[in-house]
């Protein structure tokens, strides 16, 4: 009971801060459009490559884009922690009886809400520019579900890292050098059979690719439910591990102050 109450309080605190920044709301709404239109135009001809069998490129791109947006938003989650450390808010929480897990869970919940909103926007936009979701609402729900699972793990890892490095610059460096490469070492924008062999090998161990594969398979035709289930399970395990790590990292932070 108490852990839930604390988590909700932390979530509320983040959401308030977010929704009181009109600029942020604008950016969150506009960003998906830019990506969708940009990538849609840029990679349009991929659908004409012999061996591509994903229907239209927009249809193929949408799940990849949803996953990419999920991690690129969640990866920055730790920045709020660093802000809180600098303000003294983190210390106020840590000398209170607040459940440590709530500090991560609340931050993750906020990310999940952002990701869900962004994903819905992308899915909606995709429909208006000719994308289709043959498996209907259920398929889209699974797609958004795996994207949030992955985003929640990234947010937890980002929080954990923030507690360890405690410095904006270090976190920025780590996030940028992880999210973009992981996105392009996946099948987010290119069909598996068309990427070089070595990328295919790496992609097998890349959580971003797990989410892309599961989400795409669930949202498009010829769904491989076995693939969806195994990748989702892997993502769930990753989330539990990262949440545990994020909660543990408060000890590292407290040792350093």
């Amino acid at each position, binding site marked *: 009971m108490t852990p839930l*109450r604390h988590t909700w309080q932390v979530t509320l605190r983040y959401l308030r801060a977010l929704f009181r920044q009109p600029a942020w709301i604008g950016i969150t709404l506009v960003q998906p459009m830019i990506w969708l239109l940009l990538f849609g135009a840029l990679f349009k001809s991929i659908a004409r490559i012999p061996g591509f069998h994903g229907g239209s490129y927009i249809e193929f791109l949408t799940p990849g884009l949803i996953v990419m947006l999920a991690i690129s938003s969640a990866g920055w989650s730790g920045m709020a922690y660093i802000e809180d450390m600098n303000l*003294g808010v983190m*210390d*106020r929480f840590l*000398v209170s*009886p607040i459940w440590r897990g709530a500090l991560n869970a609340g931050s993750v919940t906020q990310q999940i809400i952002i990701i869900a909103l962004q994903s819905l926007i992308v899915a909606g936009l995709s429909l208006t520019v000719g994308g289709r979701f043959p498996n209907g609402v259920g398929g889209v729900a699974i797609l958004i579900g795996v994207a949030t699972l992955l985003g929640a793990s990234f947010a937890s890892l980002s929080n954990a890292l923030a507690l360890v490095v405690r410095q904006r610059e270090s976190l920025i460096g780590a996030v940028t050098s992880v999210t973009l490469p992981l996105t392009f070492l996946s099948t987010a924008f290119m069909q598996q059979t068309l990427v070089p062999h070595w990328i295919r090998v790496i992609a097998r161990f890349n959580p971003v690719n797990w989410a892309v594969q599961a989400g795409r398979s669930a949202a498009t035709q010829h769904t491989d439910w076995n693939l969806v289930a195994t990748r989702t399970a892997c993502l769930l395990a990753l989330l539990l591990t990262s949440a545990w790590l994020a909660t543990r990292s408060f000890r590292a932070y407290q*040792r350093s*102050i």
Partner: protein
Amino acid sequence: MTQAIIAHELVKTYPGEVRALDGLSLSADSGMIFALAGPNGAGKSTTFKILTTLSRPDTGSARVAGIDVLRQPERVRQAIGVVGQKTGATPEATGSENLVMQGEIYGLSGRALRQRVNQLLDRFDLREAADRPTKTFSGGMRRRLDVALGLVHRPQVLFLDEPTTGLDPDARASLWLEIERLAGDGAMTILLTTHYLDEADRLADHLAIVDRGRIVTQGPPETLKRELRGDAIQLELEAAPSDGRVTAALLALPGLSEILADGRIVRARAEHGASAIPGLLGALEREGFAVSSVTLARPSLDDVYLRHTGHLYTKHDERE
């Protein structure tokens, strides 16, 4: 009388051979205001961090509200209220939102919490600012909110790390009144740090001066000042005396030291200035000197502070 705070031989080092605490011990009785003063980097905030369960000492032990800080930090956290050196409020949230969240963290909710929040808003004169984001607050309002946050759950022991730094004289005076009221009924023990010795003088039942991670002197402010031996007495004569006569007359009196005559001004130190003055005036009159004014200056905490922190540096330097 029970001890609300006991710290025993706390040692804390930070990477790079920084010895923030070097065997600091202190003990504060229940219901008292205990002040820590000392130069920047002396270890005041480090002491606070350990006593409030934020960080752990390398060695040493501590109890707060009767609970072992190292063994049962969760129980200590329920019993204490903490106002850090930095403000701890969420800038985007309003005053009330900050207070409500703080209350929820400590297990308050519903009507009881709303009442408590209203009470604190009134008490700290934050009513008008209750629905404004705290980032728009003035420094004084923010600090009052910080203290209110520390009090939501009616803690037994309150920690205030430099509560009045950066406040204007009015804001300081009103916060002093609040702090005095909090400690007034003896139900709460307050440990505070300050760089203002007038603040310590006014508020503290007990003052400890910290330097280089240790307490170099402590006691009730009155006692500390008395231990300095000597109020400063300054006399002005109506006419300048001839050399040596005043000094000779005063040397005969018991209890005076550091006698110095300079033109019409005569200076001396006496352990109890007020009781030395009649004798002093009498002696001067007998010798035929007319006195036009007398001033008596009690030693201030600044003297105490300078003496202890100043001396210590030379001692350290010799040792090293």
